[in-house]
Each structure stands twice: as structure tokens, then as C-alpha cells.
């Protein structure tokens, strides 16, 4: 399943790996702490791949 998700090769489609994030006792849902971590990972992925560098900070 994860392989199927990773195999999608379309421009501007990226993949964030949530494996390893802490799960609740039900083994299905993320805890509040891991959701915060995932939110940060999503922001980082967005900024890295899709957010143009502000003028003046370009390297």
C-alpha cells in the first residue's frame, strides 16, 4: 500500500512519510503530539517544494 502511494509519479505531487509517528492505543490513529509533528512535516514539505523563495533571500 505504501509502495502504491510512493509509486505515484506525477509532477507537483509529493509524498510525506508518516511511518514511525506515535499511534494511539488503537494502533490506527495519531496522538495529538504526532499530529503536531505531522503538521510541521507537511509545512516543511510545502515550503521546500512549492513555496517560491522571497525576493532578496534567493541564493
Amino acid at each position: 500500500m505504501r509502495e502504491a502511494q510512493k509509486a505515484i509519479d506525477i509532477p507537483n505531487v509529493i509524498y510525506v512519510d508518516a511511518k514511525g509517528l506515535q499511534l494511539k492505543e488503537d494502533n490506527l490513529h495519531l496522538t495529538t503530539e504526532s499530529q503536531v509533528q505531522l503538521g510541521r512535516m507537511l509545512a516543511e514539505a510545502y515550503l521546500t517544494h512549492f513555496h517560491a523563495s522571497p525576493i532578496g533571500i534567493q541564493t
Partner: protein
Amino acid sequence: METNTLTLPKPKRQIFILSGQSNMSGRGGIVRAADRKYWDGLLSPECSPHPSILRLAANLQWEPAKEPIHIDIDTRKACGVGPAMAFANALRPRVSDEVGLVPCAVGGTAIREWARGEELYENMVKRAKESVKGHENCEMKALLWFQGESDSNTEEDASAYKVNMETLIHNVRQDLNLPSLPIIQVSNITTFMYFRIIRVYFIGIVMMMMSVYRVGCLSIRI
């Protein structure tokens, strides 16, 4: 005393669609009581509200965003903390615009329910269109997608997932008229093997119970 009549330009708003199933909706902090499940209300600073973060409510009106973000969207289950507020709070200082969240995720849904023509898909497209309609300062930036656990139960569903997801991406981009809309997929946290193991255990337990039952029947006859 002079009054300042200068009108400030309306801030820009960057729009993000949040979709998928329960882990995008948010179950963080959901606790079980005797007869129901509810959110414990605990927030870390990273997922606290901020005046620059808004969400499109089920009634298609913008309002200040706060957890649970999916409260009026994923209505069949108790909603708790998802990734959206932490995402918006991490993004906000870097983009220096407002962040507009469009929650669409519904717990327990399989990818076939997000096919074009299905209620969930059509509602997501409608909400996405509405979020930018008539607001020249609003710009659709990305779709965040976290779904797939419901498609991991059988090998058939899992093997069809890639094509179904590619179709979904194509359809969303076409229907929103944004051919290169950025899409961020979150991988499954569980694996197919996990469900297979559970299934093997379950079948094992059933078989064991059946043999116990047979032995029981035999001993009664004896």
C-alpha cells in the same frame, strides 16, 4: 484631531484543502468514556488558534480556525486534533499571508468514495471552488491528502490504489481548473502486512473456537 481614512489593502489568503480520512480529520486527544467518545480539549501551542488562520465552515463561511477543524464536516465521529492547525501555524510566519483551511476529510472512507460523482468528492470540489470564489485575494495553494487505511484491508483494494489515486489527482486538477495544483500525500501509517497479520490471527481464533466447539459437542455426546 485628524482621522486616518487610509484603507489598508485586504490581506492575501493562501488556501489549502485538507482531505482524506480520520487522521486528516483528527483523532488526537479523543478519549473513550463509558457510552461515548469525546475530545479532551488539550492543545499544544503549535495547534492553538491565531487571527491569521481561518477555516471554511460547513456553511461555506470563513471563520477563525480552531480545533477540532473538522467538527462540522466529519460529523459521524468525535473529532479531535489533526495536522491542520500545526501545519498552518508552522507556515504562517514563512508566508506572511493569511492561511485559509478548507476541511473536507471524513473518517473511515475508502478511495472509491472519493471518485468523481460521489458525494464526498463533489462536496470537496464545491468547497474548494467556494473558498476562492469572489475573493481575488484568495489563492488555492495545495491539497493535503491523508487517506488509504480503508483501502489496505484487501490485496485487491491495495493494488488498485495507485490508479485510483492518480485518477483522483487528475479529476481534482481538472475540476478546479488548476492543472498543476500541488498535492501532498501522507503515506499510510499502518501497512498492508499489519492487516494481513490481524486477519491471520482472527481466522486462527475463529478456527480454534470452532474446534473447541466441536470438542465440546463430542464430549456432550460421550
